């Protein structure tokens, strides 16, 4: 019961939040929080639930971003369609990547994802005929669209807010369903002990691949959104190690294998980011690092993971 209440409250908050004020900076912050929640949720499916710590998840974000961008710029495809295709392409490319990397376990897997991510980044950087290399790609005008009779005002942040809100709601819905399903139970088992999982009849490779596919799809969607919102992408923005590490950070600090964790992690990340951007311009990463260390040492289940234990969410408190 409390779970449903929470879900309704969150949905209401999502719908109404931007209407609290006309301050576009506030809207921008909200969008940031939701965007990073999306990324955290994506990583969480593979890294949190299945315990496969990927340091190269930005790859899927980048694939989504470039696909959406190129489909729009070169083929005039409507952005929302490009978004979905971007996600789908990321999912498709995740399969061979998974095939390669899943042969490895633990830290070896993590290193492999790092290597793959760097290879993809270098390929995109150097394949100038397709991607314009280091110069990046840019959207100058977004298509005129109508939504319920009114023309969409792309200059305002609101359309983007609702776009990312829908994507985030989708991602959280997926996470929630997974956490309660057989797939979720299987993923947690794999995280604990892969041999025992096999002995219990779980096809560990197939299960990991499913988690990866979902994770990559969501990351691809996020990448597509990034392209539309920021209107400029280059390999260093969307394929970077920093983005990969920040995705890990959000999920770990927020709460591994929880539905609510990524939001908490994203809020922390964005708040710290903004506080430090005002005063120090770069200091925020110092605190990411520090926070990561503190969480691993004292709160391995994450901030939301720990908070959840204190809240009356019932025995089945999978938020």
């Amino acid at each position, binding site marked *: 019961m409390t779970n449903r209440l929470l879900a309704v409250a969150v949905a209401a908050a999502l719908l109404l939040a931007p209407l609290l004020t006309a301050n576009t900076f506030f809207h921008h912050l909200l969008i940031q929080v939701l965007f990073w929640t999306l990324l955290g949720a994506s990583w969480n499916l593979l890294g949190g639930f299945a315990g496969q710590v990927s340091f190269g998840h930005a790859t899927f974000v980048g694939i989504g971003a470039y696909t959406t961008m190129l489909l729009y710029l070169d083929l005039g495809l409507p952005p929302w369609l490009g978004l979905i295709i971007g996600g789908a392409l990321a999912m498709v490319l995740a399969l061979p990547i998974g095939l390669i990397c899943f042969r490895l376990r633990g*830290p*070896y897997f*993590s*290193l492999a994802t790092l*290597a793959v991510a760097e290879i993809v980044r270098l390929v995109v950087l150097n394949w100038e005929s397709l991607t314009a290399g280091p110069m990046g790609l840019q959207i100058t005008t977004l298509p005129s669209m109508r939504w319920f009779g009114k023309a969409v005002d792309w200059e305002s942040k609101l359309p983007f807010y609702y776009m990312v809100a829908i994507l985030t709601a989708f991602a959280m819905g997926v996470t929630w369903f997974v956490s309660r399903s057989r797939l979720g139970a299987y993923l947690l088992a794999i995280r604990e002990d892969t041999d025992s999982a096999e002995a219990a009849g779980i096809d560990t490779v197939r299960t990991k691949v499913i988690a990866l596919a979902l994770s990559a799809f969501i990351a691809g969607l996020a990448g597509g959104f990034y392209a539309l919102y920021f209107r400029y992408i280059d390999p260093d923005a969307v394929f970077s190690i920093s983005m990969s590490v920040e995705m890990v950070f959000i999920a770990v600090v927020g709460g591994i294998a929880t539905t609510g964790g990524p939001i908490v992690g994203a809020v922390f990340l964005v708040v710290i980011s903004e506080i430090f951007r005002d005063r120090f311009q770069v200091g925020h990463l*110092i605190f990411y690092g520090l*926070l*990561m260390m503190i969480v691993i*040492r004292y709160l391995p289940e994450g901030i939301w993971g720990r908070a959840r234990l204190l809240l009356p969410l019932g025995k089945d408190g999978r938020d």
Partner: protein
Amino acid sequence: METLIQSIVSGLLTGSLFAMIAVGLTIVFGVMRIINMAHGEMVMLGMFGAYWSYEKWHVDPFVAVLIWVPLMFAFGMAVHRYLLRKIVPGGELNALLYTAGLSLLIANLALFLWTGDYRSINLAYAAAPMRPFGISISKPLAIAFVMAVVVMTALYLFLSRTDTGRAIRATAQNPDAAALMGVNVLRIDTITFGLGTALAAAAGVLLVPSLYVYPTVGEILVVKCFVIVVLGGLGSVPGAVAGGLLLGLVESLGAVYVSVAFKDTIGFFLFLLVLLFRPAGLFGVGKS
């Protein structure tokens, strides 16, 4: 032909320094089974140390090595003793994440304190390269190479001839058995981490005359380091040396004969291939 030899020589010289950094990483893995994501930052700290001691007190980096190595050894031990010790029992992934956080912390602290400006030092005697047999060799790199060889030899002697060295090797093979033999495993862990840090920092100091110094240099270095350590076999010191030299060669030859753009990619491909088909390293001596 001359280009080939030139290429090989520079590859080996740079490779020797990579090797030293990689040995630092590999001994930590061998003894504690953790992959230290902050290893690159230790190199960076060594670089900055040498840079500042040159700027402020005009100490030649190759002399400054004598100051910074013991200091960084102590720093490494402190990092293990006060930060890592409680994390290691939590498992490899936790340690990986923790050291990733540490890496972010150190790199960005440096960025904050010293800005991201690329710095370099210009030693007077470095201006003109040496030209033995018509091959151009940068003097600082040559000196660095010689010192790296000295350090690695000293390390080899330390590990094989001293009691502490033997204790380290024993712990790497089997911590439980070593403990039963009276080895204070925690103390060995701390010493090893200090040693690994010192090696990284030493390489940093030696590389200062030859590379640009900036706070995020660790990011690229640590990834190269992983490649080397996996190529040579995780936990194997000779493997790391061979791997370092190999990577130096591959990058040098790759830059000349393939393309500058893709020289990094070659290393990664090799890395993936090895991880997939010979996870114990090219020479089969790595541990899992």
